């Protein structure tokens, strides 16, 4: 995918929290460029520094070293009051939605516009447009307490978009939602990215969120970037330990209770409908046992992995490896 201009550049970014008698290094030497129009994922385990990173991007947190360049502006050089203005072009949504509980949906969406000094009439007009975008026109007069989690997040998204930002920062925006609602929110984000051309940064600890909507991903481990690349690439060939851990997270416990020879087959994007396993069984004339499968259909291509238990005898085993090799299906033995 060809990207246009850099939207956000992080250069040697570091953040150390200082309290009375200890230092917590939350980020160290982060170098990252996020381009206009992409959906960029940042993933890592709890405490890795994801939230700190996203809060550094809009300078809610001042980095202790390095720079944030947003839309060609070096944020370390602008005055505080300019920063307030700049934040209006960076929307942000949160895990806990953070809606104003004493304001109804419409008033919540008007809130950033009030902050920006937009007239009440124009603000309400804009709020109704956004309610349409997120599909909640009928809830305009409802209060947050009367909404479901998914609806609250839709309101939060509408609110974040009110000032027509260039970037939308999402910190664990789906972590409090069930899988179905998560999918609908991710679809909404994808639509927003496509139709409004807004650059989206998605922070999550769930690999499924990344693969669902992101173009590129950075994996943060222990305050640093462990790996960065196209989502497909990181999925197929995770290089760092942490990346493997995140990509193959469902697998580990299966390895515990099956102590025999196993083999991981990797689906790297051949068409979804090619019956790889069935062909293999037919051709090798030996049964295999599928222990684990995690495959997904992305743009009509099969991605993911499958773990099969290999037959006892060495000859059948060799035949299977030979089949996989001749058909150029990536695999590895799992010990």
């Amino acid at each position, binding site marked *: 995918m060809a990207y246009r201009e850099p939207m956000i550049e992080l250069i040697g970014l570091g953040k150390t929290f200082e309290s009375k008698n200890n230092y917590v290094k939350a980020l160290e030497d982060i170098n990252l460029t996020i381009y206009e129009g992409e959906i960029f994922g940042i993933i890592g385990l709890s405490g890795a520094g994801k939230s700190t990173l996203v809060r550094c991007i*809009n300078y*809610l947190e001042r980095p202790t070293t390095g720079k944030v360049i947003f839309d060609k502006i070096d944020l370390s050089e602008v005055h505080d*009051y300019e*920063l*307030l*203005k*700049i*934040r*209006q072009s*960076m*929307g*942000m949504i*949160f895990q*806990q939605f*953070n*809606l*104003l*509980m*004493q*304001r*109804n949906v419409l008033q919540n969406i008007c*809130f*950033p516009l*009030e*902050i*920006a000094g937009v007239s009440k009439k124009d603000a309400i007009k804009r709020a109704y447009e956004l309610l349409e975008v997120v599909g909640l026109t009928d809830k305009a007069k409802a*209060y*947050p*307490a009367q909404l479901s989690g998914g609806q609250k997040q839709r309101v*939060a998204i509408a*609110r974040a978009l009110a*000032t027509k930002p260039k970037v939308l*920062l999402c910190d664990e925006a789906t972590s409090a939602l069930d899988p179905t609602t998560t999918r609908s929110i991710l679809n909404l984000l994808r639509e927003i990215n496509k139709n409004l051309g807004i650059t989206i940064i998605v922070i999550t600890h769930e690999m499924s969120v990344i693969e669902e909507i992101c173009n590129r991903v950075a994996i943060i481990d222990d305050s640093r970037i462990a790996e960065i690349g196209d989502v497909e690439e990181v999925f197929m060939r995770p290089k760092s330990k942490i990346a493997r851990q995140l990509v193959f997270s469902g697998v580990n416990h299966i390895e515990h209770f099956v102590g025999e020879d196993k083999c991981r087959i990797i689906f790297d994007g051949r068409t979804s409908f090619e019956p790889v396993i069935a062909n293999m069984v037919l051709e090798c004339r030996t049964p295999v046992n599928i222990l684990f499968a995690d495959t997904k259909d992305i743009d009509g291509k099969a991605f993911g992995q499958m773990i099969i238990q290999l037959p006892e005898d060495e000859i059948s085993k060799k035949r299977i490896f030979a089949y996989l090799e001749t058909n150029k299906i990536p695999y590895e033995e799992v010990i």
Partner: protein
Amino acid sequence: MFSRAVLEMIGKGILETLYMTVLSSVLAYILGLPLGIVLVVTDKEGIAPMLTINRIIGVIVNIFRSIPFVILLVALMPFTRLVVGTTLGPNALVVPLVIGSAPYIARLVESSLKEVDHGIIEAAKSMGASPVQIVFKVLLPEAKPSLIMGGAIAVITILSYSAMGGFVGAGGLGTLAINYGYYRYQADIMLVTVAILVLIVQGVQELGGRLVRRSDKRL
């Protein structure tokens, strides 16, 4: 049961008590509300941390809160005379009432504002809200139900302080209760005045609760 004169006296007492309570509450809030806001805003975790200011105000508030009201009442007499020209009557009691309760109100306001979810403040900041905007568009409106409840508590406290003013001839129901019940052993008048005080407290509490239920959109 009571003579006309006594009834008139009770009526006057009620009016004086209400007058002192309402006037003192309003003035105490004019002083205490900004103090409470400053305490929250300048706190270590606040939206504009200023630790020195925070600590100074905190200490002053604590000092005034630890002085028993009766002592404050007497100690402030010279100041009261300076402000209202006398140390007798309802107006004279308003001065110590305001000074005695404003620090208490500052703490009530502080605790109400601190109940506002930090995430909401974070969201407002992410939209480019200034500290002033956060105070007036987020903290105060979001804490409104809790502030109203605190308001009822403050008014009731001021009411009970005002009854203590009876010892220094401030007027109101407190003076009645003390003059008749304490000095002249007329228990019936004392009982009636106490009963009226109880009713007023009930009424304020009830009104506060009703306003909270009406204003809180989380319910």
